[in-house]
């Protein structure tokens, strides 16, 4: 009896509180295409360095990239060698011989249709990615599996991190950028909490985590990205803070690259 009453009560509450979602269509303004720079220099010989140039697309079109081909892309290391990144496929510029070194600053220059875009980024000290562990977490009445990267933040402020997580080779579209304002000098044990139910880990899933150590401008970019550019209505929408100079958006990053993987037991 008690049980029935409580079930009834919950049913009433759910009726009242349960948000109701539906797909809608809206008239949206469309801006003229804007150049998007997505470039990186890594310290990994396998990853190398690459720059992807594209244009913004209509919101209602699919998510495929509108490439910007035929640009001249170069990266200069400190005041030394200038590396050219040849176009390996439409809009993708790559040079595997450019392997970055921590402490060095990389200067990007893109010339396309008479427009010049520049940016620079310094590769920070690499903090060791100690291990990746699977943990159980309670989540609204059930238990879910999460992965936690373990690392030790070095004493002294100024370390910034960005993590990328892949499930069975597919990128999980959540940004995980941290600075060390609250965690300076500590052993870090924060799990990477994904936001979509679809991404939930199951037994046998292969989860890979890439840990990158990034400079402050990159941290600001990814932090503001996760706050305001993901289409979520919970924050005021805005464009992430770019480090590209010139009429373009996007990010150029010189970062360290470490990858670890684990199979969900």
């Amino acid at each position, binding site marked *: 009896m008690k049980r029935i009453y409580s079930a009834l009560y919950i049913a009433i509450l759910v009726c*009242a509180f349960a948000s109701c979602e539906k797909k*809608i269509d809206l008239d949206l303004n*469309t801006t003229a295409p804007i150049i998007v720079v997505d470039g990186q220099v890594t310290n990994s010989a396998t990853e190398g360095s690459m720059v992807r140039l594209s244009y913004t697309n209509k919101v209602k079109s699919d*998510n495929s990239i509108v490439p910007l081909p035929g640009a001249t892309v170069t990266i200069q290391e400190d005041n030394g060698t200038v590396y050219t990144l040849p176009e390996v496929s439409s809009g993708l510029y790559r040079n595997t011989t450019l392997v970055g070194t921590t402490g060095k600053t990389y200067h990007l220059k893109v010339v396309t249709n008479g427009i010049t875009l520049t940016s620079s980024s310094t590769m920070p000290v690499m903090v060791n990615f100690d291990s990746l562990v699977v943990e159980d977490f309670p989540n609204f009445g059930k238990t879910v599996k999460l992965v936690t990267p373990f690392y030790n933040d070095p004493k002294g402020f100024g370390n910034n991190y960005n993590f990328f997580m892949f499930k069975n080779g597919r990128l999980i579209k959540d940004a995980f950028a941290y600075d060390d304002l609250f965690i300076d*000098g500590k052993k870090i044990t924060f799990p990477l909490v994904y936001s979509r139910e679809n991404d939930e880990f199951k037994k046998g899933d292969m989860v890979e985590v890439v840990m990158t150590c990034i400079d402050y401008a990159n941290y600001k970019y990814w932090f*503001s990205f996760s706050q305001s550019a993901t*289409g979520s*209505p919970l*924050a005021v929408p805005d464009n992430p803070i770019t480090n590209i100079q010139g009429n373009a958006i996007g990010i150029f990053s010189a970062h360290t690259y470490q990858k670890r993987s684990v199979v969900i037991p």
Partner: protein
Amino acid sequence: MNRMAVRKTMKVLLVLSLFTTAQKTFAQKKFTISGSVTSKNSGESIIGASIKVLNSNFGTTSNEYGFYSLLLSPDTYQVVYSAVGKTPDTVQINLSGNIEKNISLSEANYELAAVTVTSSKTSGRSVSGSQMGIEKLSVQEAKNLPVIFGEKDLLKTIQLLPGIKTAGDGNSGIFVRGGTTDQNQIILDEANIYNAAHLFGFFSTFNSDAIKDIAVYKGGMPAQYGGRLSSVLDVRMNEGNNQNTSVSGSLGLISAKLNVEGPIQKDKSSFLLTGRRTYADMFLKLDEEYKNNQLYFYDLNAKLNYELGKKDKLFLSGYFGKDALGFNDQFAINWGNGTGTLRWNHIFNSRLFLNTSLIFSNYNYAFRVKNGTNDIRIFSQIRDWNLKQDYQYSINNQNNFRFGWSSIYHIIRPGEITGNATSSINDKIQDKRYSFENAVYASNVFKPNNKLTITLGARLSAFSVLGGGNFYNIDGAGNIKDTLRYAKGKVIKTYYNPEPRVSVGYMLHTNASIKAAYTRNAQYMHQITTSTGSNPLDKWASTSNIIQPQISNQYSIGYYANILHNNYEFTAEAYYKDMENILDYRNGADVFLNETVESQLLFGKGRAYGIEFMLKKKTGKLTGWVSYTISKSERKINGINNNKWYNATQDRTHDIAIVGIYQVNKKWTLSGNFVFYTGNAVTFPSGKYQVNGQTAYYYNSRNADRMPNYHRLDFGATMQLKKTKKWTKELVFSLYNVYGRENAFTINFKDNKDNPNLTEIVQTSLFRWVPSVSYNFKF
């Protein structure tokens, strides 16, 4: 510049006081009728009761404590005492010396009310006087209107009045005349309530069983109020019945309420204790799956009042409320306000009235997150101590003078984070912020003849930023240039603001008037929020060396008329308001426990203007109103929208409310309301792109898009159950959102779940067809 402002204000105050003394000297021999107006059944003092001398233009209204004073030449007068929901009383007075006349008015029963045309059944806007921009609502008036979850809530009912807009579906937060929620000063028995929301705003902190009435000043704020730009919501608690002990309460879908009040000494002193608690969680506990979750709030209102003698009265009132929300062990948050007010009313003589108040107010939240080896707690608090005095001096029947002062000491604990030994967090306790907010004010209501009323007032506010801890200098990009360290108690900077308040009312004929007002307001405490609803974690920041006080100037004009034999009231008000030093977050702001919140802020200006119309039917079996507002609210902030003007989030072009209450018979009262408003201004993406494999949206101009229009119809019915001498019982039914409109709460852009290569636009709506029933009793 500040010093000049101070000098100017002092001059104004000086002229005002000279003016009043001059009036005094020339006054002929006159006597006063003074006393208090109370309710016969409960002994509660009546605020704003009308005291009118029949066949003359002499009259006044009772003040916040029911006290009134009327100065007249010796003669015989017929004096009419009337108030909302009360039967008017006419008293003959032979005035040959000062007279004390305490009046108690009995409840108007509905048969009487239906025929009594002279007594206005509803309060609020008034044709006479010079006060404008005010809306009043008593619990009495609101009690028959339909409400969501059957939970009577004055903060939701006032949203049906023009110029006051809801912060969202089912939300108790309000936007007044294009301002933000933090620009409303919400005071309960004079104590500031920093977060007037329970459960993210779906309920307000005001338990209607404990509340007497609420007055909202949207403009033309009297000089005794200050500290916020957009409005003052003055909420007064019941005092407690000093005639009989009574118990009342209600059982609803969401909460149970109990109210006990009664005399301590009959006619002299009384107490009131009102509690409310939601009980959704008690049922959750019965269920295995939900039993470890926490979700409740409670309120406690208490009041004692004691008559110390004929001339002195003491009040002690308090409020305490708390919300708790938790999911298993992983996450818990609780927040709440606590206030205390000690008031002393003193009558020096029949013409001079003094109220002295000592007020305490506290708001804090605590947040706990646990995952794995991390157990992290976050705490923040804001606390005020306030001492003030308000003198009301009735100089003659043409001049009413009011003056006083207020001092508030603010202590903010902006943020404290602590972790357990195994957590990855370093404990961090941010410097406490201390400040001192002071004001002096004076105003005079001058009625030279029966047509004209002029209110001249001025307030001088001073805000001192006090030391203790680090302060910063910041460059244009928000980077810290240098750090300044101050000893505790050292005055770092004092801001002065003169705030003139002027209003004029002119009676065109006995039933119509025009009014105009100019009001300047300064605001020293700021809350910055990214969400539209109420977020208990939203941060309050005090004015500092970098954050400037917000300033507004409001100009308004209005037309007021009682039409069709006083059965209807038509009013229209137009306003223009400019605002300086408005705050917003910098793009990508990180304010969570940020030591230099200033580095994350941008400053700019705002402007808001509009016209508000209201047609009200005051008498008869069918009462109600139609209100319509057309308005605009814009911002211009350096660093946002290419420094160009853009729509404020709360900018809503049209806002309509239709309210009707129909008294079918003694047993049944039916009610209904319909609302429509333009959707909020929002920013939708105008493009998208991929970066590092993630979908990102491109935004072009701030708040250039609109949420869909909002509309909703509600029905309510009150059934009076069998009345006995001791018991009154009623059942209240409501149906919220009768036709089940799916009003957009949020609109989200995201990758399609099944085909991530496509974008979908998803609208979330909250409340469709919310029925409720509650049972009210009193004995």
